[in-house]
């Protein structure tokens, strides 16, 4: 068993940071919250749509960044997806890379592109597994600002990280 007795409730505008050493189950908790794994005991209830960030980018390597993001936006079927994609690209300083094939992006750029996919989804609940991995300090600041903006508009963020992220008034879930 990885962990037990974990119970939390996040309302609109809330955030929680899952912390703990490697292998303690931070990613598993995120996958349980995303309904990708079933807990041995207990349950997860989420009233809103979710967007998930994992280690894998889920962006087609052969497509341009903008086309790869549009594919997921089309599945989300949101009429204002293009506006949201543009805002996400701008917030993560990816505008200049929009027409570059994803396979040519560096590790950090690809990570930012994955975060842009989450930001462009329009989902109220963000589940972020190690979002700062591979990011430089400027990009981490952009990520923190993006999470703050999301919460300010009523969004929820559940973040698993082994790094220190500035997420004000976030509940800490130590595993």
């Amino acid at each position: 068993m990885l962990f037990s007795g974990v119970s939390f409730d996040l309302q609109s505008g809330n955030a929680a940071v899952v912390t703990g050493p490697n292998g303690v189950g931070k990613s598993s908790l995120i996958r349980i919250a995303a309904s990708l794994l079933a807990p041995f005991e207990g349950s997860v209830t989420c009233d809103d749509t979710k967007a998930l960030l994992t280690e894998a980018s889920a962006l087609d390597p052969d497509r341009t960044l903008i086309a790869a993001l549009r594919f997921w936006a089309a599945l989300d079927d949101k009429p204002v997806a293009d506006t949201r994609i543009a805002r996400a690209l701008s917030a993560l300083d990816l505008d200049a890379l929009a027409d570059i094939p994803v396979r040519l992006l560096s590790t950090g750029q690809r990570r930012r592109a994955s975060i842009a996919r989450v930001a462009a989804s329009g989902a109220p609940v963000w589940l972020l597994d190690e979002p700062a991995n591979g990011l430089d300090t400027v990009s981490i600041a952009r990520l923190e600002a993006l999470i703050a903006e999301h919460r300010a508009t009523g969004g929820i963020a559940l973040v698993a990280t082994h790094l220190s992220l500035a997420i004000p008034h976030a509940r800490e879930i130590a595993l």
Partner: protein
Amino acid sequence: MIALIRRDLRRSVSSGGATLVVAFFLLVATLFPFAIGPDGALLARIGGGVIWTAALLAALLPVERLVGPDLEAGVFDQFVVRGMSLALVALAKTIAHWLSFGPPLMLAAVIAAGLLNLSADTLLRVEIGLLIGTPGLAALAVATSALVAGVRGGGAVTGLVMLPLAVPLLIFGAGSLDPAGGAGAVKLLAAVSLVLVAGAPFLAAAAIRAGMD
């Protein structure tokens, strides 16, 4: 669903997978006249079976790429988070895979028929058989791909998993070429193909789900 089909179809075409299938199919069909010699009557007699065998072998080529890369890239995670049914995703993959290799294979069969000295009547029977059988072959390919995705050395066992399961398609496909009793084989071919198209997406979904855990 349409967005998924379009995505997979575009990937298949842009990666050259569809062209590879047709080229391999024609290559296998070409080998037989070289190996057997210019005996037109013999080639005409075995040609239909050769085309079905070539189609089966060619259909093996893209199997590894149908599910494995998406599983590795976390694409299925994103589908599940969106509440999408993995069986529907597998069905979309089946349709896209069939579109990428079924119609091109049927066109290439016309060239192969020329190489194998097939009559117009036999060619028509081959085309009808391929039209009915290739959707089943596509469904089987997606299910096989899901089963071997994530397995170390999965590529090596792909053929071992898929070819025995495709034997009914081969038997009834080749049987449909018989001018005397082909009608029954066509019906059985359609039945097998229908069962595969209806059932394989659920098998693929279960295998994908297991691969995600």
